[in-house]
């Protein structure tokens, strides 16, 4: 199987883009990715999106965006896996290119959350949980994460601000990302004074909902345009795994089992161990997710993931940099588009284009997106290739 190369990347700023529509957001990212790839034209478009049907009253995004981007005639479809939608679209694009059926696959993550009021957005995001048995009880994803955190802190005796290091690191890193929603480091005392959203989560423990689009153009190495200007980044490993949709149906709600399996499988495919990676773009929609994702990936024993946040080990110069361009917390959370941002940011790191957030000598990156509390986990290993 020939190597699948990420030939082009593009992204829009993540924030509330009142004057930009869903299709315009998508177009900006597509144009940027095509330009970055040296003019390579896609033959297929896979759109990662979760909520356009509900929040933008628009289904059929494949046809819409192929049309609007001047790509009429190519195959196009939407891939949906809640927060992991765009990561799953990346996997589908990778499979399509690797199979030889598609020469150049454009993967677009796009989400417009600001067209509806917050209560409607919360309801829509909760559709990614079990509607009949979770959302109908008044559950939001934030409340669910708060319950995970409450139990986790209780069982493992985590001190009051034990998870604070995750958002503080993300905000410090986001300061270097021109596309991030928040570009300012946060002081520990500011975190300590922040208003509670759903105890024990305060506003810094919850990623902000926002609009955004990011795109990646995939092709095989032999199809790259001549004079391709960037270091080559390949998708060395890819795995998508499901767990119970409802958190309460798991034998242990404090374990992200799908995240564990997908890391193991993606790393095995890449022929590496998780400890071999230079950075980990994890899915920090909530601070507690960071701790559980680190445990799932095998970086900590169960119940000790929070300890990574204590002493700078996850900073840009630490042992395992995470959320290097701000993560979901500081870059912002554009719903189903998030996985595309995570992959784009990992590519920037591997190419050495991450600016002030650059992780030195980054050769291999682990990228993981979650749908809900890892009801879906999609993990990719990206690395520099010759």
């Amino acid at each position: 199987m020939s190597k699948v190369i990420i030939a082009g990347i593009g992204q829009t700023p993540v924030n509330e883009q009142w004057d930009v529509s869903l299709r315009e957001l998508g177009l900006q990212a597509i144009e940027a990715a095509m330009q970055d790839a040296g003019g390579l034209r896609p033959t297929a478009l896979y759109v990662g999106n979760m909520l356009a049907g509900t929040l933008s009253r628009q289904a059929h995004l494949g046809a819409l965006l192929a049309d609007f981007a001047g790509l009429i005639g190519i195959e196009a479809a939407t891939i949906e896996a809640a927060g992991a939608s765009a990561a799953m679209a990346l996997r589908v694009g990778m499979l399509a290119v690797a199979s030889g059926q598609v020469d150049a696959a454009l993967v677009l993550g796009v989400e417009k959350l600001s067209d509806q009021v917050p209560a409607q957005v919360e309801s829509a995001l909760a559709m990614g949980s079990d509607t009949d048995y979770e959302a109908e009880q008044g559950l939001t994803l934030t409340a669910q994460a708060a319950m995970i955190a409450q139990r986790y802190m209780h069982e493992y005796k985590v001190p009051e601000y034990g998870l604070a290091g995750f958002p503080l690191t993300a905000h410090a890193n986001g300061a270097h990302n021109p596309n991030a929603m928040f570009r300012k480091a946060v002081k520990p005392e500011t975190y300590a004074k922040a208003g509670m959203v759903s105890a024990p989560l305060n506003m810094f423990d919850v990623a902000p909902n926002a609009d955004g689009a990011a795109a990646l153009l995939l092709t095989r190495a032999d199809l790259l345009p001549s004079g391709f200007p960037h270091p080559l980044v390949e998708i060395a490993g890819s795995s998508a795994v499901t767990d119970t949709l409802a958190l309460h149906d798991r034998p242990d709600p404090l374990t992200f089992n799908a995240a564990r399996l997908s890391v193991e499988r993606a790393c095995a495919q890449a022929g590496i161990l998780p400890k071999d990676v230079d950075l980990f773009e994890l899915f920090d929609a909530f601070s507690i997710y960071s701790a559980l994702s680190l445990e799932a990936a095998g970086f900590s024993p169960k119940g000790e993931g929070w300890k990574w946040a204590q002493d700078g080990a996850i900073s840009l110069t630490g042992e395992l940099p995470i959320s290097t361009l701000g993560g979901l917390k500081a870059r912002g959370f554009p719903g189903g588009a998030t996985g595309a941002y995570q992959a784009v940011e990992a590519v920037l790191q591997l190419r050495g284009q991450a600016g002030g957030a650059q992780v030195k000598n980054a050769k291999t990156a682990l990228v993981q997106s979650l749908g809900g509390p890892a009801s879906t986990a999609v993990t990719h290993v990206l690395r520099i290739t010759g």
Partner: protein
Amino acid sequence: MDIPRHWRLKKQRYALVGEVCEHCDAKLFPPRDICPECGEEAKTLFQFSGKGEVYSYTAVYEAPEGYAEQAPYTLAMVKLDEGPLITAQLTDLGAQKPAIGMPVEMVTRLLRSATDERGMLIYGYKFRPAVAQVA
């Protein structure tokens, strides 16, 4: 209005009627027809006692659509005595603080705000501190 969707679930919602696996005796809620414990078919109805304890909880201030009039409310995961863990609101807390391990019992309550004068009323299970614990 999702009438059929709610109507289908009434037995489960009003009274915590789940299933029991005839093969391994696992009690299932929500009902799921295939036993997650042994993989066999599980379609026999089972009436849960409604007794359990709080596994975890939180307060919801930013409520989703349809729940705003009851906010802030307490959401919990409740470990039923028969085994399953379920997501449900805690109610009738009064001035009591919820706590992990708190004994609770099922009550049937309005799940959503009843302030829409035209809409249908959705009833379902919630949990409250066991009355004996209060008095």
